[in-house]
């Protein structure tokens, strides 16, 4: 951990400081199309990608080769075996410190100017052990459920090198996709942005209730881990993190379980709860910051970390906290314990839960419900079935592992398989109702 992260670990930072020391300005470039070519450039919303140069970011002893393709919203296309997705962002030549710990040095960023290629993503797809089948449809009914169905995607498919350890393949893919995303965004450095998001003014919200995000990260070892400033967050304590740092990619996903219930790097970069709180800052609340917390695997660890996370929130002076999770029923316990611990300290807690109520939606919706903090938002039913139409083209693999069918076929799948469809971080519009 860096000095700043260490200093804020015990929650001693005043809440307004978590809005950013100076604050982050985002220069947003709207991407409407992407093409593979000779030179990387951005003009009129069209991102051109130099293929050889882009492939070069994946030069690694663990990888034999990569293949790049472009697929856009509305295409009759499906991406299967989706791993991580990253939004192209940079703070300057060479990344300027973006993705700290991977591309930039492992230290706090979170201020200055960050260029964002909104509407574009780098999506890595292919087989890794422990990764559960994850599907993105670029059109059809599932396209409304996934943030990466709305972006023009540079899909990275890969062949591992013979004899390479899977852990090394994972590392090479993560480093490659982050470096590529930073590199692509450099095309926007000298281009007039379509939109400029100025930092929030802490004074504008004086006297309003301080509302924060408590973001659980699933940390269960290789292929099910999340990285903060470049290091695994497993075994760490809950800590306050600057929302600007989260914007700058301080939280990177290597978590490939529970496709509908995971938070890829792309969603952390665009933290939906932070965005919703920002939108109301100075109106009816004060966006007071983000606390991140691991999800330990053992019950004693869950209890200890939940108590610690609630104390961090109390020390920071939060009036209310929105708690989010990553993962399946096991992670409901982290939610319930944290929400109850917050209420016990007099802090209003609201949790986002995917419901797991069976195909017919009649079973108990939550595996481990809170007892005292009962304010829950639904992100939809995990077990609800969808029929996905046949598509012309598939990326990421020939077959869909879960049903062992050709990836281009018409498929009946549970919502649980659609990437980010039950977004625990609150991206989606799905909810379950009677």
């Amino acid at each position: 951990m860096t000095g700043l992260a260490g200093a804020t670990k015990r929650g001693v930072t005043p809440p307004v400081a978590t809005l950013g020391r100076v604050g982050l300005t985002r220069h947003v470039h709207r991407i409407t199309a992407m093409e593979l070519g000779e030179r990387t450039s951005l003009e009129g919303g069209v991102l051109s990608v130099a293929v050889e140069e882009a492939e070069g970011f994946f030069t690694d002893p663990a990888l034999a080769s990569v293949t790049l393709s472009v697929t856009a919203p509305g295409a009759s296309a499906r991406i299967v075996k989706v791993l991580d997705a990253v939004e192209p962002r940079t703070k300057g030549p060479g990344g300027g410190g973006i993705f700290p710990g991977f591309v930039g040095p492992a230290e706090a960023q979170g201020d200055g100017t960050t260029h964002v290629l909104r509407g574009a993503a780098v999506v890595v797809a292919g087989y890794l052990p422990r990764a559960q089948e994850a599907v993105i449809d670029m059109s059809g009914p599932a396209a409304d459920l996934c943030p990466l169905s709305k972006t023009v995607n540079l899909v990275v498919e890969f062949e591992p090198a013979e004899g390479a350890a899977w852990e090394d393949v994972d590392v090479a893919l993560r480093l490659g996709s982050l470096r590529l995303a930073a590199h692509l965004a450099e095309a926007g450095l000298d281009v007039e942005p379509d939109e400029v998001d100025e930092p929030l003014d802490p004074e504008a919200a004086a006297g309003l209730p301080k509302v924060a995000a408590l973001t659980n990260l699933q940390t269960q070892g290789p292929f099910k881990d999340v990285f903060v400033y470049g290091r695994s967050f497993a075994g760490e304590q809950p800590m306050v993190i600057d929302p600007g740092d989260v914007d700058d990619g301080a939280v990177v996903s290597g978590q490939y379980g529970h496709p509908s219930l995971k938070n890829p790097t792309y969603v952390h970069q665009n933290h939906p709860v932070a965005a919703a709180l920002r939108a109301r800052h100075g109106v009816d609340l004060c966006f007071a910051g983000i606390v991140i917390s691991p999800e330990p695997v053992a019950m004693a660890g869950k209890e200890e970390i939940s108590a610690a996370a609630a104390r961090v929130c109390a020390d920071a002076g939060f009036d209310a906290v929105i708690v989010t999770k990553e993962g399946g029923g096991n992670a409901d316990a982290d939610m319930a314990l944290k929400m109850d611990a917050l209420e016990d300290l007099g802090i209003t807690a609201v949790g986002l839960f995917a419901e797991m109520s069976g195909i017919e939606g009649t079973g108990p919706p939550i595996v481990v419900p809170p007892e005292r903090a009962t304010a829950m938002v639904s992100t939809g039913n995990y077990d609800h079935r969808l029929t996905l139409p046949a598509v012309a083209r598939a990326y990421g693999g020939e077959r869909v592992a879960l049903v062992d069918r050709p990836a281009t076929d018409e498929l009946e799948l549970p919502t649980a398989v659609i990437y980010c469809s039950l977004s625990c971080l609150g991206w989606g519009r799905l909810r379950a109702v009677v």
Partner: protein
Amino acid sequence: MRVVHYINQFFAGVGGEDSAASGPESAPGAKGPGRKLAALLGADHEIVATVWCGDDYAVGDAGAVDEVLEFIRAAEPDLVVAGPAFTSGRYGLACARVVAAATAAGIPAVASMHPDNPGLDEAGTAPVVASGEVARSMGPSLATLGGAVVHLLAGDDLTADEGRIGRLPRRSVLDERNAATRAVDLVLARLAGDRDASEVPLPRFDQVTPAAPIADPSVVTVAFVTEGGLVPDANPGGLESARATRWLRYPIENLPGMAAGEWRSVHGGFSTVAANADPNRILPLDAARELEGEGRIGALMSEYFVTTGNGTSVANARKFGIEWATDMRRSGARAAILTAT
């Protein structure tokens, strides 16, 4: 209109626990509690047949519900009514499955059981109305059920006013606002003093009282169950790696332990490398055989039961538990070791 009544072996007068393994049968007209129910239905409706089945058979046998449904179809009903099952778990599960199967087959159906009956979640989209806790409350329970039958046969939907219980199906829909925005709205509602605002009803879970300790383990048969997804290497039963909809059974008779290479965990929720290197660490057969050899436990059941506990719905998990308990009772096991991952 024609009504068929489903009850268990006990209420059919066939026998108690000793007859719990008996298969389905049918007889014309009302039987047992059906006589009083028939009177409550009035002159316009008639119980044309009663179908009954032993509780263990109904819950423990894979084809039981289909057999029951055949008897029901033979009586050409306009509606199927099941119970009251009170708090009896196996009977409640059987009633729930029968009305779920009838509804799926296009025959309107309603069951009656206590709100705490674990069968409640198994009725699918078929309605269930409340009964009392025990058979002593048969009178008022039948009055509610009879009212519900008349209501349904008049073409009306059942609501809480007619005693309907259980979770109404929750459908996934797209809201105008995303979940993060709704969470902010919920925070503001709570901060403004609304203590009840929520989008998700709190589930009710049964508190299970543990069985009494076994006085002398050296004389009992012990069953092995695991949610660790441990199956023969080729996974012949196709056990799911997540969201399990089934459980499977495999023989372990005469095996000294679980040999590496012959067994494999298909569980999707943890790294299975260590488990596959020594499958005894998922299903500790090696240690159990030692205890058996030393005479500290009577015997191990000849098969173990397995499912995958990863994203499995509570409703399915509860159903598996009832089926395991039923099966163990029939096999003579009196204790079970459930290993979790």
